[in-house]
């Protein structure tokens, strides 16, 4: 299995190289994306097979990387699960790109990096030593950076790419430190050796914090998230889908692998940090999603939110594990991992929707769109599945992971520490708030883009996208529904991964009647997505049928109620900004909201203006000072460029004297 996986990776890398020399014609994207689709499908199959067979871990060492160590690779349940996630996401994005990629003007800026990006992510998942892990991690960053820079002519894109790679570089450095702590000065870099090494709780907690910074910066955890809302949207949409849907999960994989698999026992007091970071990230992320006026950025902010939810789940797992409750840790871990999978499904889907809209209209700003449900009915329907799923509404898959998360939150009284007993339900409340806000955000997203009337000419003239794209979106939508209706299957599937990460797994769910979830039989809380789906379908369908049957079925079209002001312009519709207003007012301080109203004095016929803006407080209070500091440092140091030779000599002389004096006194 591992050999097959690495072969696929190798093929992806070869494909990348080949793409660099392919002619810049219309065929090349089809070839590259088609091959990527096939290869990713194989990756998914490999992950699937390993999980389905609950196969024992297999390792492999290649003579590359650190010379005395070689590159270690291994596939176990955890990596298989993420490989499956990567395979599905990658295949869908590639399939989508076969159609979408045709609209790219400069395919040679995307194609050579795209398969390699997929391959690098696979290597991160498959690697079994620190060097290979970090190398592929960095390659992943690098290639995605190149992809972000596809539209490099735009100043915004260049800045986004810059910010992204700097943050990625920072993250990798922090990871280096984390692995440095784990490997010790002797340099035992392979994961097996790291796993064997005993370390005290302080050290483990330090590694956990470093991982939180390092992996968190890649995943979009606050306050290291700043690059994400600019970089993800800047890339072509299929790449955005991959970055948001898959790459953040690879970051989470890194966190899980290190913290739960390699690190050994953790102190309980490390968990609140993770939980709080996760919960705050979630709620702040979604508040920004509600307030952002750019469709793809809304999705990127929502990625931050979902990453926060996942980290909150992981924090819970840390807490339970530190209290020696592997069963409950498994519940939280299952929730987190399933949410990772779900988020990949619906976020990829939604980014593809955004891409489709972008292609059809050329616009990303929500306030230029509207009414696309008429022009792009299939896309709209698929988008509806996506927004329902991401809003954690039953019976789709988003709700399943949400539900599991709440179930594990509700087990908090079993924790021994009063602090956690208080914290966890509060975090649960924050997550509940997040879920409700997510629904708001996506009503806004869907409503402003697809519903109502077109707010611009391109939106009014849009047409449905190509079949490849629709096929990819339909596949993801189907998986969203499937994972929502048959969550037990997914839970059983993730079992081997959960077992590695938390030492236990949930009881098998597939044997329950009506596909019901009963994660903890002793608690007896249950949910059946299948039945809810069935009931809603039967009841809804039945109601419609009955009403049409026994009452009326007549329809007449007429103008909408205009409240006495006829021929209202489409601009009078509630737009992105106005929809967000109540939330912006309620949560003003969190997003540093500012509203300015300009009213012309009486008699002045000019238009009134209203502007609303939000500011990322992390940017204002952390990054701006940091940038200023670096700038000051650079300016200060720069004066040393313009000294006279005599002054430079004085520097040399001074240092020499200093050293000699030091030597004299040291003796």
């Amino acid at each position, binding site marked *: 299995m591992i050999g097959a996986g690495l072969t696929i990776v190798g093929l992806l890398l070869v494909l990348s190289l080949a793409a660099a020399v392919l002619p810049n014609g219309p065929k090349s994207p089809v070839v590259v994306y088609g091959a990527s689709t096939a290869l990713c499908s194989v990756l998914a199959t490999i992950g699937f097979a390993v999980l389905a067979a609950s196969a024992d871990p297999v390792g492999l060492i290649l*003579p*590359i*990387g*650190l*010379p*005395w160590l070689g590159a270690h690779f291994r596939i176990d349940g955890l990596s298989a699960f993420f490989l499956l996630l990567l395979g599905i996401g990658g295949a869908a994005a590639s399939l989508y790109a076969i159609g979408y990629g045709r609209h790219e003007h400069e395919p*040679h800026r995307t194609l050579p990096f795209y398969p390699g990006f997929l391959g690098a992510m696979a290597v991160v998942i498959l690697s079994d030593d620190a*060097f290979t892990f*970090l*190398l*592929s991690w*960095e*390659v992943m960053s*690098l290639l995605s950076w190149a992809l972000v*820079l596809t539209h*490099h*002519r735009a*100043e915004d894109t*260049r800045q986004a*790419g*810059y910010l992204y*790679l*700097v943050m990625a*570089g*920072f993250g990798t*450095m*922090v990871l*280096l*430190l984390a*692995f*440095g*702590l784990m*490997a*010790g*000065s002797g*340099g035992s*870099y392979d994961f097996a050796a790291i796993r064997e090494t005993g370390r005290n709780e302080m050290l483990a907690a330090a590694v956990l914090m470093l991982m939180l910074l390092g992996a968190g910066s890649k995943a979009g955890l606050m306050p290291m998230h700043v690059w994400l809302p600019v970089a993800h949207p800047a890339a072509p949409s299929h790449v955005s889908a991959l970055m948001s849907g898959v790459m953040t999960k690879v970051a989470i994989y890194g966190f899980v692998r290190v913290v739960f698999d390699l690190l050994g026992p953790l102190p309980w007091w490390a968990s609140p940090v993770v939980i709080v970071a996760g919960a705050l990230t979630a709620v702040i992320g979604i508040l920004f999603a509600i307030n952002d006026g750019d469709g793809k950025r809304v999705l990127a902010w929502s990625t931050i939110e979902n990453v926060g939810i996942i980290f909150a789940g992981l924090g819970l797992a840390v807490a339970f594990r530190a209290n020696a409750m592997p069963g409950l840790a498994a519940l939280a871990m299952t929730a987190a991992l399933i949410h990772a999978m779900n988020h990949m499904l619906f976020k990829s889907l939604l980014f593809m929707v955004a891409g489709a809209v972008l292609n059809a209209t050329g616009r990303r700003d929500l306030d230029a769109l509207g009414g696309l449900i008429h022009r792009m009915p299939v896309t709209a329907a698929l988008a509806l599945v996506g927004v329902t799923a991401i809003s954690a509404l039953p019976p789709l898959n988003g709700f399943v992971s949400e539900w599991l998360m709440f179930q594990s939150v509700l087990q908090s009284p079993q924790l021994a520490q009063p602090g956690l007993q208080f914290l966890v339900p509060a975090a649960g409340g924050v997550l509940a708030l997040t879920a409700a806000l997510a629904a708001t955000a996506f009503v806004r997203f869907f409503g402003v883009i697809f519903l109502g009337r077109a707010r611009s000419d391109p939106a009014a003239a849009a047409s449905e996208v190509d079949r490849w794209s629709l096929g990819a979106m339909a596949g993801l939508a189907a998986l969203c529904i499937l994972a929502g209706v048959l969550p037990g299957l997914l839970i059983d599937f993730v079992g081997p991964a959960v077992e590695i990460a938390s030492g236990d797994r949930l009881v098998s769910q597939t044997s329950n009647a009506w596909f019901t979830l009963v994660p903890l039989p002793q608690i007896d809380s249950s949910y059946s997505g299948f039945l809810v789906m069935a009931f809603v379908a039967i009841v809804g369908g039945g109601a419609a049928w009955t009403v049409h049957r026994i009452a009326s079925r007549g329809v007449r079209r007429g103008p909408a109620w205009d409240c006495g002001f006829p021929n209202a312009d489409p601009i009078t519709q509630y737009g992105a900004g106005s929809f967000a207003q109540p939330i912006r007012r309620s949560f003003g301080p969190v997003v540093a909201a500012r509203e300015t109203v300009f009213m012309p004095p009486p008699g002045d016929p000019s238009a009134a203006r209203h502007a609303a803006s939000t500011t990322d407080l992390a940017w204002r209070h952390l990054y701006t000072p940091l940038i200023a500091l*670096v*700038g000051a*440092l*650079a*300016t*200060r*140091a*720069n004066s*040393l*460029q313009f000294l006279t*030779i005599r002054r*430079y*000599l004085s*520097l*040399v002389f*001074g*240092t*020499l004297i200093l*050293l*000699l004096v030091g*030597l004299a006194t*040291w*003796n």
Partner: protein
Amino acid sequence: MSFDPPSLVLIVPAVAAAMLALMPSYRASAWINVAASLLTFLAAASLFVVERPEAGDYLHVDDLNIVFIVLNTFVGLTAAVFSASYIGHELQTGRVTPANLRFYHAMYQVMMFGMNLALVSNNIGLMWVAVELATLSTVLMVGLYRTHEALEAAWKYFILGSVGIALALFGTILIYMAAQPILGEGLPSMVSSKLIASAAELDPKMLNVAFVFLIVGYGTKVGLAPFHAWLPDAHAEGPTPISAVLSGLLLNVALYVVLRFKMLMAANETALAPGPLMVALGLLSLVFAAAMLYRRRDIKRLFAYSSIEHMGIIVFAFGMGGALANFAGLLHMVMHSLTKSAIFFAVGSIAQIKGTQRLADIRGLTQSHPLLGWGLVIAVLSIAGMPPSGVFMSEFLVVTTSFSRAPILALVLVFGLVLAFAALLLHLTGVAFGEPSGEDEPLHSTLVPLWLHLALIMLIGLHMPGPMVEWFRSVAALLG
């Protein structure tokens, strides 16, 4: 006369220098330059296959210098190839005269001779002479363009270099005086292999003082802050092939010399551990150079500061010591030399195309000249420690091994690395992306050396050749 590679790497450049000095045609001399460099490289490469000669009182070949000789002659060769394709355009634009070029090519070989001599010499006196020779020849090269700036740069380089060389000499004398009671008067007390063998018996206090002078003296050549001042200007104002040689080779040679003395210090247990001093200088150079990167306006000066930064990393690694850090330091030296010279090749081509070295006037290279632009992107990212270049491997080893031993130092190191990375990337983004600036000039110089270096960097980053690993490991053990 039997086949003797160490002497050959000296004889060939010496003879070539003499020939070139007499050669009127610049075209022919460019190719003779290449041919001589090729011969030198082949001679050096033959060290892989032929048995190593016994260490003599003057010359020797061991695990440490074999890598550097081969590397030195290799980069010397690629730089010569690049120079051959580069210098023609310089003549066209009138920046140099044919007479200048004659001098240039002769000096090139003198410089190669000096550096090779420093590497193969087994005698600290000879080593000193060789470094001085290399310095003087590069001073002349830096001033080649005879512009106001070039002369200023050369003068600055010359004065600072001379003081450095004087201090280094004093250190050398002290070493001799420490060794003289043990190894006897005369030549034996200056043979570095003998010195190291009997290092334990030398007067440690004498060694301490000597090391301070040596590190300040040769450190000036290495470009460590605060002795770095000559470096950015010398890089920026000289011909670009020379900048490549300066960064890629001369710094390495100076560093090699420092390492030799570090080995000596490490072999004497009672002497001051050289580590802390090197760590301090390394970190200072790293952070200082990183901060300097931001306000740069000249592309060559930018990468010159980056060289200071990397010298800082390398010296830090050696200062930390231990098998892994030393290994990383050696690897980083090799990688930096290959990568930085590749960058200067790219920069040379860019400056010719755009007719300027101002960063602000260079835009969108990946758009206008994809092969050159992406080559630069890869090279700069490699030097910034991005995989799969070998720099990543060495930085990986340095950071991971130092953090558990000296967390604070490692944090400073990481701070410097991130600072430098952000700065380099800032300039790279401007240069490589966006709407191309200027006219769509065709390339004037070859890209083969650039991509050859890049291929090597990747190769070593992914799979280091076995013998190299063995040499590095044995040297790493010696360095303590």
